[in-house]
């Protein structure tokens, strides 16, 4: 049999770590990317990467607690075995990246320094200045370059993934791709295709994501039959710098290093913020979340900032919603040492020094927890079985998804500094299973008949020609994109309402209709960015529909998905008996909601162009779901009631076991 070949789509952290591991295992890898891989969106990740470490371990931390924080922060909407496996791998991954030369910040004794991130009480986050993602990406880019020089990897940069090639049994045998310079098409025979194409921020127009994050690759896989999971779960990062071309991220590490969020108590106080006395400032996160303070999970911080501006009218500016993120109480030298990269971004793009003036920030679309549905094999120890071909495989055999473009690890909300971990972990972990998956085949993809690839290639060529051949005078694709982005940002981000979601779904269908009548202004066949963009815009509509329909159907609040009509308030009674009764009712409602909604949304492409939604049960066998109570009024009592119930359930179960053993 010929040597196995794998095609990796995307050269961010996930794609590069998979490529590195596969090359090491003797597999020939073709790596395609829209941009030179060193310029992938992973460079934008700022704050750090999570893992239990020697220090936190001695403070009582463990892999299990990291796992627990991740599922609790994600509101239990993720299968637990893969998350457990990821947390278990955390320390090894940090060690590996350390060996690869990532310049992690150091303690005076020369150990890796750590900072605290949202959703945890431990300093679990290793970091390299405020450009951790860039540093991790470079280390992997360097290793892949080394494999490339040795002839084990071939990079195809400025290439676009257009479609998977499926054989008569529906198995993926390669892909059709397009050179974005010469606009030539090429088929790649591959025994497995791994999608590592990242998020889909451009569906929302402006976001913190890079311009390559169109979501086109996963949309194309979906349109060829791959199921999509939890599409409605979109993380809106609490702190971004609004801009005309992009919403630039202001890392959570700014708060991790002591940054405080506040607004003047007087609405739109015109004074210089540094002159406003403490007593006239409202530190609303610290006030409302005394335990986690400024480091509550992202969905909560986002809603609070949104609320304080939109509903409480306390925005710093009148015509533009924003709050202060204040670092000015921290010594300049310390800021430069730990946060230089992000402070420089603010300074460069806003023209203001955040070391002496509080920054103005507002939430922005940041990350997609949902993505292609992927499988896994549970191991005897409750983790993921290494080497199983099921791990990270989509519903199309031979087609895999890793990194941000899979739905596996973050549930309803991702914790800060967990994405870099999930990307590197899924890339490294999937490799052995991908190889095992190809071993059962009777022939390699290279031995498949040429007509399989030729017909797929012709289909893509025809689509391309049709796009170029559209008559002029049609709608402008950039204008359609602007409308799509504005619509999605308005109805499907921080607050969601069913009437708006239903109307938006129809509007997306109208926009898609407009897209079919749009025309490209460049009909040439050389570096035609216009047609590439128009093509990727067409692939945003299926994703927009998945997001909207999933959000519309999900009548509850969970993590980043917030529907005020279905939110459950905290306790209001003051009388202890009444309060107890309220807590019982709260727990009843929580149990009923868990029964109804603790399920992954799974979307499949319907013949009518609309996503068909089904729901998948979740493996919560390791950590039983419990109420997510950050900052809720009466949280202590609710927790107490819930614990008592769990204990009695456990007792009942053990009694049943004893009874069964006795008979």
């Amino acid at each position, binding site marked *: 049999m010929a040597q196995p070949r794998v095609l990796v789509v995307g050269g961010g952290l996930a794609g590069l770590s998979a490529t*590195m*591991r596969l090359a*090491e295992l003797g597999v020939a890898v073709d790596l395609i990317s829209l*941009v*030179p891989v*060193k*310029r*992938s*969106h992973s*460079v*934008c990740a700022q704050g750090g990467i999570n893992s239990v470490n020697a220090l936190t371990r001695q403070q009582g931390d463990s892999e299990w607690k990291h796992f627990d924080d991740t599922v609790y922060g994600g509101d239990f909407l993720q299968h637990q075995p893969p998350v457990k496996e990821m947390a278990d791998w955390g320390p*090894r991954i940090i*060690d590996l990246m350390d*060996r*690869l*030369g990532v*310049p992690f*910040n*150091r*303690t005076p*004794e*020369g150990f890796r320094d750590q900072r605290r991130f949202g959703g945890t009480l431990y300093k679990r986050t290793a970091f*390299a*200045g405020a*450009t951790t993602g*860039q*540093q991790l990406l470079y*280390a992997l880019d*360097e*290793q892949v*370059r*080394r494999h*490339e*020089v040795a002839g084990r990897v071939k990079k195809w940069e400025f290439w676009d993934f257009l479609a998977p090639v499926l054989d008569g049994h529906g198995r993926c045998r390669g892909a059709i791709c397009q050179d974005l*310079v010469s606009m030539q098409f090429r088929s790649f025979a591959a025994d497995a295709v791994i999608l590592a194409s990242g998020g889909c921020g451009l569906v929302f*127009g*402006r976001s913190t994501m*890079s*311009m*390559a994050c169109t979501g086109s690759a996963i949309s194309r896989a979906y349109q060829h039959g791959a199921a999509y999971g939890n599409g409605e779960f979109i993380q809106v990062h609490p702190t971004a710098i609004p801009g*005309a*071309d*992009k919403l*630039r991220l202001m890392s959570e590490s700014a708060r991790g290093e002591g940054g405080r969020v506040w607004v003047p108590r007087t609405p739109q106080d015109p004074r210089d913020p540094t002159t406003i006395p403490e007593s006239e400032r409202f530190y609303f996160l610290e006030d409302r979340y005394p335990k986690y303070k400024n480091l509550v999970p992202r969905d909560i911080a986002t809603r609070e900032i949104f609320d304080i501006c939109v509903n409480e009218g306390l925005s710093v500016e009148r015509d533009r919603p924003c709050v202060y993120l204040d670092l000015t109480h921290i010594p300049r030298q310390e800021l430069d040492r730990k946060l230089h*990269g992000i402070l420089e*971004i603010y300074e*460069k*793009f806003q023209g203001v020094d955040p070391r002496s003036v509080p920054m103005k920030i507002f939430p922005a679309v940041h990350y997609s927890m949902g993505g292609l549905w992927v499988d896994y094999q549970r191991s005897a120890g409750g983790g993921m079985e290494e080497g199983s071909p099921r791990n990270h495989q989509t519903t199309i055999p031979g087609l895999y998804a890793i990194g941000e473009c899979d739905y596996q690890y973050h549930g309803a909300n991702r914790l800060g500094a967990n994405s870099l971990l999930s990307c590197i972990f899924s890339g490294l972990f999937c490799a052995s299973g991908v190889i095992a998956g190809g071993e059962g085949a009777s022939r390699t993809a290279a031995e498949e008949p040429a007509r399989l690839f030729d017909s797929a290639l012709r289909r893509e060529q025809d689509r391309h020609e049709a796009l170029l051949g559209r008559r002029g005078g049609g709608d402008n694709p*950039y204008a359609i*994109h*602007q409308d799509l*982005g504005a619509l999605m940002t308005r109805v499907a981000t921080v607050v969601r309402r069913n009437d708006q979601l239903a109307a938006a779904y129809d509007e997306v269908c109208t926009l898609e209709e407009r897209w079919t009548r749009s025309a490209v*202004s*460049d009909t*040439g066949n*050389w*570096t035609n*960015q*216009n047609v590439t*963009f128009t093509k990727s815009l067409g692939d945003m509509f299926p994703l927009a529909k998945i997001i909207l329909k999933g959000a519309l159907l999900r009548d509850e609040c969970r993590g980043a998905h917030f529907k005020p009509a279905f939110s459950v308030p905290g306790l209001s009674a003051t009388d202890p008996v009444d309060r107890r009764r309220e807590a019982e009712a709260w727990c009843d409602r929580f149990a009923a909601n868990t029964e109804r909604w603790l399920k992954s949304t799974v979307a499949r492409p319907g013949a009518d162009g609309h996503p068909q939604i089904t729901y998948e049960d979740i493996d919560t066998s390791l950590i039983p779901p419990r109420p997510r109570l950050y900052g809720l009024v009466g949280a202590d009592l609710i927790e107490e009631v819930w614990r008592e119930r769990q204990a009695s359930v456990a007792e009942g179960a053990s009694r049943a076991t004893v009874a069964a053993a006795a008979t």
Partner: protein
Amino acid sequence: MIAPAHSSDPSSSGSGEEQRAIRVRILRQDAPGQESYWERHVVPYEPNMNVISVLQRIAAGARAADGRPVAPVAWDCNCLEEVCGSCTMLINGATRMACSALVDRLLEDGEEIELRPMSKFPVVRDLVVDRRRLFRGLEKVKAWVPVDDSYDHGAGPRISPEEQEDAYPLSTCMSCGCCLEACPQYVKIEPVRRDGEAPEAFAERRQGAFDRGFVGAHAISQAMLFNSHPTGKMIADERLETLTAPGGIQMCGNAQNCVAVCPKGIPLTRSIARAGRSATLWAIKRLFDR
């Protein structure tokens, strides 16, 4: 790159006020080997614009200043926050990143903004250039830590905060190429495929041409970064061999333009000085080892 255009307030264009406009002059080229030509564009002014948002408006409008329909201008970009290294171009004559070039500041220089592609790399189209020679430089100097494998072998070496603070700035090099554009010794190499030449043969010939040319400040700095890493320095000699070979450090003319234009403020001349000293010591050592 793929370029969405977003007007922060689309309704404002219809307001009665006199609309301020930004005039832009772009040096275009349809494909390699073709003549370049100037084209003028006008874009409505918006507060806080950068050159990227100007280019986005131009792509969306696809009309020259005289109203003539034209193909959208092509350019490279990705992160838009000056960390990916994509969008390098010559803006009002200076090599810099388009994302962090703020229009208000540029208009202080004059009424018109001038955009040109980098001159040291072959033009692919308009403002897009082919920077594969830059990445070839990283291969040449073996800019990596030569680890055994990616399996678990415990933590990396202990590193003092001083060493980390020394290495970190060098490691923020985003391969944008500003230092190469500004370097008098880095001259454009643009081999053209001959009739009947196989693609592989052409690629090999092109690589040979690249390798004879100056490797440039960015690669020298990366060589020093890895030569200072406890594991990276295990192949320090191989890097020094490259740096003393044709295209190496001896070609540096000490103009110090590189450090002046680096958008990340990387101490490139310090790396070059270190590389010079290491190369000299290595050459002497090799002389005696013979």
